[in-house]
């Protein structure tokens, strides 16, 4: 570097690239209500579709009579399974290797299941017609409990699988069993636990919840019969995957299908899967030759499209008397609902749950996961987390707390004693992962110091004493969490979805006057890709971020990629962006050297230009180079300045963090108040600190919702009890506490810019932090485990069962 640089004005603040809190370019339209969401799309002649849904959780469908509905003016068609069967579209494959009814084929298996699809001139006619479709049901016995589902005499849910003793993930040992997936060394684990000085055992339930994005799912399908092209606008987190699946299912060649994800109002995993609404809209458009729109209402969304979690995690953890963990055993009973429609990489039917050794150096471990069918909605998606990582983090962070109780030890100290040390990275976990990097002790000590942990414990002890003296009815909980995530799926050698490798891509085109467009295989749902990916590029190619357009979501223009979920956009597509940028820079260097009449090796990069080494006054800016690339090309070299990169990551990335939640709990009413929440995140290189903070705030608020109230529950006959926002908890500003964010920065050694992903960390770490705070408040009174959500009633119940109501 030469000493004339950088100025002026720090070369326009390093072009607002990496590390700057550049304002989100998306917000101008979002805050003015000028986004363009699927439901904003209107096409000439567009029809509307909506579903007749089952009121029963398990019933035989004896007949569907649509005559009255069809007679209603404005109704164009009513589709049933019988209409789809000749096309072989009455069932569809799921991303998990199972199949799912598109429309009820002889029976229904969950409340809200799609029975018939009404197509009409507008939504109002649809709503009236739905009421006129007469469906004759014969109720069948309902199973909503996965343990009961596995009993010998349990009702047979999936009659279509009769006689099939193995499925996509191996043997099925019962008619309601989907798979048993195992990893680790069970014999050695059992041995370690049997030989241990101290063992803690607990059932940890992570209840069923729902991602509940503000915008529900929907699409507009339009088959142009003249040119044979099918266009589908939809709420898709993975538009390219949808195109490929649509092509395979329909037989329409892939170049004749265009899938577009416009602005998306939140996804959180809910928009990864393929839903009957998409299939029915496409079929209806093919049949009618008109565009067909289908948009869920809130109840449809909560009752029928993908839920998350519902994991019963039975754990055993062993340790020496002084708190060195010696083994971890976990068996999960996973309630997948009526169809196995989880969205996990194909080889991992329990996702990456086996990250459940967490931040700890555990010598030996075992995980076994039994997937089970029940009469509940299908799903099991990664709700703001990488595949089953939130379940894993909750499990280990609860087990650590339970072990601390068993040992009579402080839970912060127990963690610290067992953290993987900095010098152990890259670290191979007992369950087969290679953690790329980490510095847990530094983060932990910083967090404890920031909240004055010792002071908090003193205050808590005084509070307990005062409570026992009858001077207060409030208890103080200190919720600790140190989580390790595994994100950025993933290396194609072991990560694919239905055989589609989980690489991602970026294509860059530099315009002659020094601006650019970059297109990616991912799709933002609020994460701010248009802002941050431009920042990555600004730093790589030396053009101002404001001069770089980022485009995603249109399969006709964007390069192929696997989409946005599991915090994979920055680790994978972000890496592709940097790599494509470097290709641009390599060609730019040749052009600069040629223009400056020196050898390629005689110029060096300096923010936005190539400078002749030792002669700082001789340089070519990227703007100069861009123009020359097109209009003054090097003789013998192709004109133009473009690059594309498909990035297959060598490993996952492993963000981590240390969270502390301090909570006041009213023992009499079960109400709580979060007095303090400290969140330290280490997501490696920080691209845009402001966006990181926003992601942390949002994720923590979803974590608060999950831990403190949100649930999808069913009564004994399978009625969904939380199908509106009156009963499904979405926090408002009133319920949301203040958060303090902090960070350490441990770059990923294998990622081109060292970034790891952050959007999901706060959900992964937040849930155990809130839940541990509740548990911790009652630790002095003997509480070991109480299941979420910790709503008023359940907190009250803890106090009641501990005899605290006198």
């Amino acid at each position, binding site marked *: 570097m030469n000493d004339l640089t950088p100025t002026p004005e720090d070369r326009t603040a390093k072009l607002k690239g990496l590390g700057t809190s550049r304002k989100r370019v998306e917000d101008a339209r979002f805050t003015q209500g000028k986004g363009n969401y699927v439901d904003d799309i209107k096409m000439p002649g567009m029809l509307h579709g909506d579903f007749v849904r089952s009121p029963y959780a398990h019933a035989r469908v004896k007949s569907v009579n649509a005559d009255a509905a069809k007679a209603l003016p404005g109704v164009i068609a009513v589709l049933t399974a019988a209409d789809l069967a000749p096309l072989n579209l009455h069932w569809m494959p799921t991303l998990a290797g199972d199949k799912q009814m598109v429309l009820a084929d002889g029976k229904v298996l969950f409340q809200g299941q799609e029975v018939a699809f009404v197509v009409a001139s507008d939504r109002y006619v649809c709503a009236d017609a739905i009421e006129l479709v007469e469906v004759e049901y014969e109720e069948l016995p309902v199973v909503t409990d996965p343990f009961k589902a596995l009993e010998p005499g349990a009702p047979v849910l999936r009659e279509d699988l009769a006689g099939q003793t193995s499925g996509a993930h191996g043997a099925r040992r019962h008619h309601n069993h989907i798979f048993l997936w195992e990893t680790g060394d069970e014999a050695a684990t059992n041995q370690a636990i049997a030989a241990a000085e101290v063992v803690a055992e607990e059932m940890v339930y992570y209840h069923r919840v729902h991602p509940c994005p503000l915008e529900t799912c929907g699409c507009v399908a339009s088959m142009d019969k003249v040119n044979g092209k099918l266009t589908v606008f939809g709420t898709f987190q993975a538009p390219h995957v949808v195109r490929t699946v649509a092509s395979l299912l329909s037989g329409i060649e892939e170049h004749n299908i265009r899938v577009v994800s416009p602005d998306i109002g939140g996804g959180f995993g809910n928009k990864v899967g393929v839903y009957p609404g998409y299939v029915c809209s496409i079929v209806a458009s093919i049949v009618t030759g008109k565009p067909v729109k289908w948009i869920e209402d809130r109840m449809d969304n909560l009752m029928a499209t993908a839920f998350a979690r519902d994991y019963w995690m039975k754990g055993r953890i062993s340790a020496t008397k002084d708190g060195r963990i010696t083994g971890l055993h976990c068996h999960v009973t996973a309630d997948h609902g009526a169809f196995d429609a989880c969205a996990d990489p194909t080889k991992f039917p329990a996702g990456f749950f086996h990250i459940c050794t967490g931040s700890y150096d555990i010598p030996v471990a075992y995980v076994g996961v039994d997937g089970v069918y029940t009469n509940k909605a299908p799903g099991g998606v990664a709700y703001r987390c990488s595949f089953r990582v939130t379940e894993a983090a909750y499990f280990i962070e609860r087990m650590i707390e339970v072990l601390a109780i068993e040992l009579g030890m402080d839970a912060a100290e127990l963690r610290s004693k067992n953290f993987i040390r900095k010098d152990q990275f890259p670290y191979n976990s007992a369950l087969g992962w290679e953690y790329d990097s980490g510095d847990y002790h530094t983060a932990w000590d910083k967090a404890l110091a920031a909240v004055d942990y010792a002071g908090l414990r003193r205050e808590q002890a005084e509070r307990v004493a005062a409570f026992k003296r009858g001077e207060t009815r409030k208890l103080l909980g200190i919720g600790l969490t140190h989580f390790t995530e595994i994100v950025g799926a993933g290396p194609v050698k072991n990560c694919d979805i239905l055989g589609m490798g989980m690489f991602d891509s970026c294509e860059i085109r530099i315009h002659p006057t020094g601006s650019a467009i970059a297109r990616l295989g991912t799709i933002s749902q609020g994460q701010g890709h248009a802002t941050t990916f431009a920042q990555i590029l600004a730093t790589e190619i030396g053009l101002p971020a404001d001069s770089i357009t980022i485009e995603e979501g249109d399969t006709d223009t964007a390069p192929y990629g696997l989409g946005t979920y599991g915090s994979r956009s920055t680790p994978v597509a972000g890496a592709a962006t940097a790599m494509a940028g470097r290709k641009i820079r390599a060609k730019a260097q040749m052009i600069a050297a040629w223009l400056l009449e020196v050898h390629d090796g005689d110029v060096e990069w300096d923010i936005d230009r190539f400078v002749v080494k030792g002669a700082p006054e001789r340089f070519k800016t990227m703007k100069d180079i861009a123009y020359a690339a097109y209009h003054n090309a090097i003789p013998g070299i192709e004109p133009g300045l473009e690059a594309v990169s498909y990035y297959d990551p060598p490993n996952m990335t492993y963000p981590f963090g240390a969270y502390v939640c301090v909570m006041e709990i009213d023992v009499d009413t079960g109400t709580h108040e979060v007095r303090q929440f400290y969140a330290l995140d280490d997501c490696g290189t920080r691209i845009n600190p402001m966006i990181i903070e926003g992601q942390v705030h949002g994720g923590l608020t979803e974590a608060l919702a999950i831990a403190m109230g949100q649930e999808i529950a069913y009564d004994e006959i399978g009625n969904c009890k939380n199908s509106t926002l009156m009963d499904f908890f979405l926090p408002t500003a009133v319920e949301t506490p203040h958060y303090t964010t902090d960070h350490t920065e441990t770059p990923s050694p294998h990622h081109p810019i060292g970034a790891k992903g952050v959007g999901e960390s706060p959900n992964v770490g937040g849930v155990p932090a809130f839940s541990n705070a509740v548990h911790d408040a009652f630790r002095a009174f003997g509480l070991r485990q109480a299941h979420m959500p910790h709503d008023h009633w359940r907190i*009250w119940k803890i106090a009641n069962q501990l005899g605290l109501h006198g």
Partner: protein
Amino acid sequence: MIAAAFEYHRPADLKGALGVLAEYGDDARVLAGGHSLIPMMKLRMASIDHLVDLQDIAELKGISVAGGRVTIGAMTTQHEMITNADLSRAAPIIAEAAVQIADPQVRYMGTVGGNVANGDPGNDMPGLMQCLDATFTLAGPDGTREVAARDFYHSAYVTARDDGEILTQISFATPNGGYAYEKQKRKIGDYATAACAVQVTKTGGKVTAAAIAMTNLADTPVFSDAAGAALVGTAGDAAAVKAAVTAALAAINPTGDNRGPAEFKRHIAGIIIGRAITRALSRA
């Protein structure tokens, strides 16, 4: 979530509205703020052929505080009640209760008339009006009549109002003394797990009058004479509060729902009633 088709009427005066009700009988229903009725229609749990929108009827609006009486027109919104300075001076308990209803959007639309006429045990204004011993004025084809709030509620959604009647106003004697409206709910926008309205007066260190009513703890609001009586004549000490709570609890009959089972609600009710009484006494 789309309502079935209906005819929309928008009369300019009370007479016109009563006329539409008389003409269509059971098939007609008045629409105030719509924030209880419209959701039921969208869920298709209520199907109404003729909606009679009251919003143009000026005589149903307004708040007056005069001659020791407070009168509130049925079409007065919850937001207007919260922001009316005269009302807040005369009966501060109204604003204290109203801000605990739903969220600002709902309160801009929801009316006091709709809230008390609805007959939903979850509504907060009915219990409050029983505490204040309010009188509801009902206009029908044969003129007007008055019904005490304490006599108005028969069971969930069943009230003393005839189908052909419109509730025109609510009035009550300006309260004095201490007051409190205490409510536990799961979140903003939720109905009460338990709520309680209290007005008390004290002279010379002794409670001279007390009115206690509760919300969402039975299929109607619950006014407990016995609870008030347990306070009168005492100094409002802990034992008296406890006796009042015990008396109040004897009058409730909560049922389990997503907020929790009956036994939980009963316990929460005890805490909330106790807190309401204590706070009201502290202001008396």
